[in-house]
């Protein structure tokens, strides 16, 4: 059903569960290295495992103090209260990515609860998203389905399991039902997840890269007919791994459910999977009852009772709120309203910021991200952040600033970086893209161009300096664009007068 028609007949109610992988050095309950920490990103499968990661008999969990600090900081940044005392619980289910046959989570006593996150929509309106809770848990391993149709569960012949991710510290942030989103529902979904991402980044507790699974969103959507008090049946859409997907998935579910309800059908309470390629969701398993997980207090772990001193210490270290942060950056960078809106609406603020931190000027960083990189991302239908690292953009700009690259060459180098050919300096080296700074080579090329265009040479000698353009063009062509045009111009004028 058409989105506007769906909204006319039904009121959407949203809810989100966002999982954040914490970037501590070690796992939640054991000293194995954490693949969500930058030092361990590229580990081979099953090399970041210890007896607990594999659920070997006799292994016992011990809580990572840093993960607790991170969780408290995150809870505080979400405006939550921090529990005086809380405990862990076992969530029991059988699945090969969870070798213990249970996940250690928090159930009735989360570490943080009752908060709110302020988000800002494109037109400047502010919306408050109520937070129910944020609790600590551990991530599961990673499954690769082999055989059948390319990695899907259906038709797979067997599955391969990598337990590196098993035990990575997670915080799951659960909102309360969000009412009144109306036509803004898809945008609210996107902005909310972006706000969580920004908070997590500002706290420095996770790299929060959606494409790497550091930040994962499950979107709950239900509809109720206009005027009805009771909530409709909800679906939970998983696998929404980019901001763009979050926005699209919510819009899709509203339209899908509206069509079913309008035709007199009923919505099944279930998990649904988002497919980026088709822009649709498909049914997964029916949602299990919480009872079926047979939660019970984790007997291998003692309760946590965060001291009020610790909570206040962490509160005093909180970075500024994202809205305030944005205002400060805008002032510091000196962007116009339009330039700044461009960056924010393109969801590039954190990228520009990281590029500035890495040494680029704000304007140069802005031009790269909202210009060439945005264009390429758009062309490939992916998020700009997945194309290139901010550090590499800063390095690229540094090469331009020191005269080693022209803008045109820099764009070619960018393409190489995106193609995975390495850091900018490596691409320059490998592709031989450096600006020709060899004066004798430039002079020789200029002399040759002047000799072949005697009429132009005469004009320059007669004082018609603008005629030099033709010679400069010929030299740039001879140098395959790898020369600094301003320097070439100087040489042309100098040689013409000799």
């Amino acid at each position: 059903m058409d989105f506007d028609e769906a909204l006319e007949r039904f009121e959407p109610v949203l809810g989100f569960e966002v999982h954040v992988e914490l970037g501590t050095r070690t796992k939640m309950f054991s000293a194995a290295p954490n693949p969500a920490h930058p030092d361990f990103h590229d580990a081979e499968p099953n090399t970041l495992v210890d007896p607990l990661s594999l659920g070997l008999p006799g292994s016992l969990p011990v809580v990572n103090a840093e993960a607790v600090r991170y969780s408290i900081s995150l809870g505080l940044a979400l405006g939550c209260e921090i529990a005086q005392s809380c405990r862990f619980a076992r969530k029991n289910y059988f699945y090969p990515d969870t070798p213990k046959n249970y996940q250690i989570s928090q159930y009735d006593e989360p570490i943080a609860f009752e908060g709110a996150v302020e988000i800002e929509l494109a037109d400047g309106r502010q919306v408050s998203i109520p937070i129910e809770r944020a609790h600590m848990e551990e991530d599961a391993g990673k499954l690769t389905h082999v055989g059948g149709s390319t990695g899907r569960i259906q038709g797979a012949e067997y599955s391969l399991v990598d337990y590196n991710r098993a035990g990575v510290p997670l915080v799951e942030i659960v909102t309360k039902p969000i009412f009144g989103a109306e036509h803004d529902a898809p945008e609210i979904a996107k902005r909310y997840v972006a706000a969580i991402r920004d908070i997590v980044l500002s706290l420095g507790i996770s790299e929060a890269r959606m494409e790497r699974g550091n930040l994962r969103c499950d979107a709950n959507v239900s509809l109720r007919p206009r005027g009805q008090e009771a909530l409709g049946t909800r679906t939970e859409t998983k696998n929404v791994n980019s901001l763009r997907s979050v926005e699209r998935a919510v819009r899709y579910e509203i339209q899908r459910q509206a069509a079913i309800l309008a035709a007199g059908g009923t919505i099944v309470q279930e998990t649904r999977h988002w497919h980026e390629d088709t822009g649709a969701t498909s049914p997964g398993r029916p949602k299990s009852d919480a009872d079926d997980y047979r939660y019970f207090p984790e007997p291998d772990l003692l309760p946590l009772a965060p001291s009020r001193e610790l909570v206040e210490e962490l509160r005093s270290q909180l970075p500024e709120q994202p809205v305030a942060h944005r205002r400060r950056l805008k002032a510091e960078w000196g962007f116009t309203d339009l330039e700044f809106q461009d960056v924010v609406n393109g969801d590039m603020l954190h990228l520009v910021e990281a590029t500035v931190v890495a040494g680029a000027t704000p304007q140069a960083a802005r031009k790269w991200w909202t210009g060439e990189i945005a264009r390429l991302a758009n062309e490939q239908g992916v998020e700009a952040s997945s194309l290139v690292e901010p550090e590499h953009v800063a390095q690229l700009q540094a090469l331009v600033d020191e005269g080693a690259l022209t803008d045109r060459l820099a764009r070619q180098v960018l393409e190489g970086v995106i193609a995975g050919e390495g850091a900018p300096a490596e691409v320059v080296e490998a592709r031989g893209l450096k600006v020709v700074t060899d004066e004798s080579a430039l002079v020789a090329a200029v002399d040759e161009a002047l000799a072949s265009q005697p009429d132009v040479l005469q004009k320059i000698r007669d004082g018609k300096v603008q005629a030099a353009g033709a010679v400069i063009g010929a030299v740039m062509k001879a140098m395959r664009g790898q020369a600094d045009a301003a320097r070439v111009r100087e040489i042309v004028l100098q040689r013409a007068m000799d």
Partner: protein
Amino acid sequence: MSEITREDVQHLAGLARIALTDDEVTSLTSELSAIVDAIATVSEIAGPDVPATSHPVPLSNVMRADEVGETLSAEQVFAGAPSHDGERFRVSAILGEEQ
């Protein structure tokens, strides 16, 4: 008498991946009922003013520093694996969905 039914026992057995014979279902139904009744008796004595005890030892905040410890070698990792490809564990194709 509590209300543990044969269906409850069969459902729990399914969740726990335990195969039970009909006789076992019958005996477990009455045994689980007796256990639940016994616990109900405790609940009668401990009123709402007595908090449930999940941890009998009065300790909290037992934590470790965020320092990397030892990991297992590939040989150790796969020592007990029925099947693997040298890098990853190999398991039967999974029916149903990821959690």
